[in-house]
């Protein structure tokens, strides 16, 4: 069923509700491929819809490219008017967020001012600017997207920026502890804190970073935000505990894996997105959108991380590969592979503890479609994230967040 441009645009206009009506539609630019399948018209229609103030329009090759990718990755019907592709130029999320994040690490270090030089050095060790700063970036982009949605103001509030800082600190504190728990000796291409200073001090450093994060959180002065972000701290610990246990039943295993993934990785992103949305906009629907975006992106991020553990080599990753197997953890690729190779069950149950298990398991995974299945699953989560975030008023930041889901899928470290 071909959708008429006019009718389509009319429906979008009506759906815009309280927002300002966008400027009138420019005439379709260049030739447009005929709608081949159901999923294509909304994409193209969206491309033709003009949201932003500027008048740039996507070029034809780009439309084709985007169309193809969406066609191949989407499995559910696009929701009608809110699924759009911006006619903005490709927005590099890192570029967009760069200004806000420029002094992020400096500001974090200010929170970690402590008189003992060595303790400070340990705490600052990972805030050297070499991490991906992925989480703070999502947070500031989400902050802007929500601010624009609510009041058309792009300014990031000080409190929202604090949330980005706090999220990164909580994340780092958990990394420091995780490295002690896993007895890891390298991360981000350098030695771990426990490797250099010993486990006792490393645990203290993690505790200190956490306390500093908590202090910064209290200073925002908002009890709701405190509750939302404290939930993360609880989830991180519970996630670690989930990792301690294991399930017999194959079906339970997957649910267990996803729950652990949520708690250990996605909760932080979901709740920090929710926190900035609360600070930027009073509408609970927006809070839910932000939360769902963060949750889905977070899960996708971890799934890809688990894939990379199999497909990438240690130097590139910055940390040892096949690390999960060596820790006895059965992640996505393994769980999928197990469906093809039931002999893996025994290895999973004994957490790859017998000599040769790790190597065998790795081979099975690479022979199976475990990696592909996990990647596909990640794509679906990304798609869901995109679907959610598209409900917000359009903005460069919103597009960047969509772009980010692509980047999550494409990353190689």
């Amino acid at each position: 069923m071909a959708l008429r441009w006019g009718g389509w645009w009319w429906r979008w206009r009506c759906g815009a509700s309280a927002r300002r009506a966008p400027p009138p539609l420019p005439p379709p630019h260049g030739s447009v491929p005929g709608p081949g399948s159901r999923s294509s018209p909304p994409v193209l229609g969206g491309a033709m819809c003009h949201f932003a103030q500027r008048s740039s329009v996507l070029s034809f090759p780009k439309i084709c490219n985007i169309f193809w990718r969406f066609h191949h990755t989407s499995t559910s019907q696009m929701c009608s008017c809110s699924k759009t592709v911006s006619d903005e130029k490709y927005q590099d999320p890192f570029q967009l967020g760069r200004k806000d994040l420029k002094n992020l690490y400096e500001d974090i270090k200010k929170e970690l001012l402590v008189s003992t030089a060595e303790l400070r050095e340990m705490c600052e060790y990972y805030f050297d600017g070499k991490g991906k700063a992925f989480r703070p970036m999502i947070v500031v982009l989400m902050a802007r997207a929500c601010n624009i949605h609510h009041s058309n103001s792009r300014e990031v509030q000080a409190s929202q920026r604090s949330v980005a800082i706090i999220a990164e600190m909580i994340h780092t504190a958990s990394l420091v502890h995780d490295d002690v728990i896993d007895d890891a000796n390298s991360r981000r291409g350098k030695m771990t804190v426990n490797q250099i200073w010993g486990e006792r001090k490393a645990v203290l450093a993690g505790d200190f970073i956490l306390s500093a994060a908590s202090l910064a959180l209290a200073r925002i002065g908002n009890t709701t935000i405190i509750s939302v972000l404290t939930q993360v701290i609880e989830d991180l610990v519970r996630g670690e505990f989930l990792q301690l246990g294991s399930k017999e039943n194959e079906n339970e295993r997957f649910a267990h894996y996803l729950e652990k993934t949520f708690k250990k990785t996605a909760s932080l992103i979901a709740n920090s997105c929710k926190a900035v949305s609360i600070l930027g906009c009073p509408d609970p629907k927006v809070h839910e959108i932000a939360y769902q975006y963060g949750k889905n992106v977070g899960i996708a991020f971890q799934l890809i991380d688990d894939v990379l553990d199999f497909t990438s080599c240690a130097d590139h990753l910055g940390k040892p590969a096949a690390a999960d197997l060596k820790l006895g953890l059965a992640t996505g690729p393994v769980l999928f592979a197990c469906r093809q190779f039931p002999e893996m069950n025994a290895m999973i149950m004994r957490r790859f503890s017998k000599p040769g298990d790790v190597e065998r398991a790795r081979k099975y995974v690479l022979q199976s479609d475990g990696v592909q299945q996990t990647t596909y699953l990640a794509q679906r989560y990304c798609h869901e994230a995109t679907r959610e975030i598209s409900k917000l008023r359009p903005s460069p930041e919103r597009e960047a967040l969509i772009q980010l889901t692509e980047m999550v899928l494409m990353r190689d470290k």
Partner: protein
Amino acid sequence: MWGALLRLGGRRGLAGAAPPPAAPWSQVVSEAEKIVGYPTSFMSLRCLLSDELSNIAMQVRKLVGTKHPLLDTARGFVYDSRNNLQMRGLVVLLISKAAGPSTAELSFQHNMVSGIYSSQRSLAEITELIHTAFLVHRGIVNIGELKSCDGPLKDMQFGNKMAVLSGDFLLANACTSLAQLQNTKVVELISSAIGDLVQGIYYENSKSSEENCLTDDIGISTWKEQVFLSHSALLAKSCQAAMELAKHSAEIQDMAFQYGKHMSMSHKLHSDLQPFVKESSSDIMAFSLNCAPAVFHQEFLGRDAWIKQIREAQGKGNIMDYKKLQEAIKAGKGVTSAIDLCRRHGNRALAALESFPPSEARAALANIVYAVTRFS
């Protein structure tokens, strides 16, 4: 330490008067518990009933037979009722009761049980959670420093893992409960207290492994700063936070802080002094070379002379003769100075209590001070 024998206290004025005959420590505690409404040894630590902790308990059993310190910490909870006293929580409850209902917000009253607001009870629990979390986190071992006599590496790694996880679990619970108090000022106070505690423990740990540094080169004022961080800050700030929860004035908050601070300083000094004031010398207790009497002694004697005394006590086999060292310290002014300092802090704690109206709770708090400043 806490267990010094004392006779029952009366209700005379607090600071300055001769300390009343003091009660046995257990009696001080049980009186105090009655005052606050229920035995604090059952103080919920609700999370103890959680799945996660029973998981940990099972895992910690695997540590039996190993040398990981977590086992001692865990044993301490189960068997040693003295260490398990949850002193901090009790003090927070007492001071909450002593301060009485909020004068600022009269609508607050309904939430009180035995004269204490439920938020204050929660805070007492949080304080204990944090204290316990750090007891656990103190019990981590440095893998790189292990020797073969410490046992299999795997056991130590496993013990570390359990210690980190359980400590984190307790801290996370503390944070969650803090958030539920819906008071950002309290979260600020307690978060900063945690930061202080970490720094204090860090100093504790920072014994140089250099050969001649069995003891730090610190004077008594540095010692006081470090001990404040590791032993006082948490209680002091919790007492203050308890006042904030009831919306008491800044002055009352400060007095509560002062009580918490000075009482815990006295407690630490009292504890440090035990090896030096006990008469029976059949069991020579080993003591830290950074304990208060030793630090004072070093300050009076000069570092070089002190190091010399340590070496003499170490003898040829590098095994410390604590009795000899103890005598060296007793011969100097270290012990009396430490006792003086303990009493000075005690008096300041009592002075802070004057700002609270007379009550059973206040008397109990005073009794605690008498207990930790008594050396006989």
